[in-house]
């Protein structure tokens, strides 16, 4: 510890099977990092990825890894940049996995994926499903094992851009609020092992609609939509297209137009129950 620097607080965890250490020389950063990664399993061995964070200026931070430094303007930016770098690094170290930008939840031992662009309400819907008994795998990153068809958990704190609707159960007291986001710890609801993927919902938020609607997708449309949400397509043969088609062919795939949150959750649950009963 250098003179004048806050002593480092270390956190060592496993993210998608990769050991990660984050040492924070800032009390605020340490609290944010601990809250964000509290649900990921602890790691005992040597980490492959080592981050160091220090305060920078009045509100900013510097994130250091492997000789490269990233500047974050404030606490919200810190988590955004840290996660961004971590997600790219995980893709490089687990190239055999098929990474999809999506939320994922497990119910009755099967996973469903919610794929949508940022801002379409994936995390809010994921939060509502967690409150209805689903296990939390991730709200942002779905690493799929192509051999087993399972999603590996990445249960970082669920990240909301705004408060969920009033009808939703309240956020837990441990929720961390930054300048841009709310980070909801999901520790006790997090899945701890890979879960087979059974359904994919491609979500579009349509608040003006009177209610949510669902449309089954052909294998081709599902494959195309899945491909569009893939993060590491180039790491796979045929630019990842075969993998996307294969994944889509193994599950039930739907276009979900979400509206009122409670009605959307009810619709999604009824479909999962029906498909589960029919073995789909």
């Amino acid at each position, binding site marked *: 510890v250098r003179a004048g620097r806050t002593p480092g607080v270390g956190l060592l965890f496993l993210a998608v099977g990769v050991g990660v250490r984050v040492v924070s020389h800032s009390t605020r950063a340490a609290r944010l990092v601990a809250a964000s990664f509290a649900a990921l399993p602890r790691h005992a061995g040597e980490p492959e990825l080592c981050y160091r964070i220090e305060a920078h200026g009045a509100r900013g931070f510097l994130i250091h890894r492997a000789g490269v430094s990233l500047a974050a303007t404030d606490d919200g930016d810190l988590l955004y940049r840290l996660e961004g770098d971590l997600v790219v690094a995980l893709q490089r170290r687990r190239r055999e996995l098929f990474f999809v930008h999506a939320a994922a939840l497990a119910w009755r031992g099967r996973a469903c994926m919610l794929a949508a662009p940022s801002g379409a309400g994936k995390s809010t819907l994921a939060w509502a499903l967690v409150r209805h008994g689903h296990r939390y795998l991730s709200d942002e990153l779905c690493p799929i094992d192509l051999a087993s068809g399972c999603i590996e958990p990445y249960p970082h704190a669920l990240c909301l851009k705004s408060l969920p609707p009033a009808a939703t159960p309240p956020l837990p007291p441990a929720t961390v609020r930054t300048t841009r986001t709310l980070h909801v710890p999901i520790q006790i609801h997090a899945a701890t092992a890979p879960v087979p993927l059974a359904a994919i919902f491609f979500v579009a938020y349509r608040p003006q609609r009177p209610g949510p609607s669902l449309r089954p997708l052909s294998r081709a449309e599902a494959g195309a939509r899945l491909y569009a949400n893939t993060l590491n*397509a180039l790491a796979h043969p*045929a630019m990842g*297209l075969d993998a996307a088609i294969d994944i889509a062919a193994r599950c039930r795939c739907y276009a979900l137009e979400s509206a009122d949150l409670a009605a959307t959750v009810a619709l999604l649950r009824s479909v999962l129950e029906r498909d589960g009963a029919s073995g789909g």
Partner: protein
Amino acid sequence: MYSKRRDDLVVRAVDDERLVLDPRNGEIHQLNTTAAQIWDMCDGHTSEQAMARRLAEDYGIELAAAVCDVRALLERFEDLALLETGG
């Protein structure tokens, strides 16, 4: 005119549809059954007239309508730069 698919595209048949991935820009295109049928005939040897005749026979539509449908689809493929130029 004889239209020909670009050789560098990644194309997969999924049921009776096609997925076409353009490696130049990462865009993916989903072709429905009819579009897939025309796409498969973009081999550089099948004329637009022949494509239209095939479509008219398969779907029981007027040849004139089939000609319009084929032309519209080929123009769409051209707009998306999925065909070889100068074909």
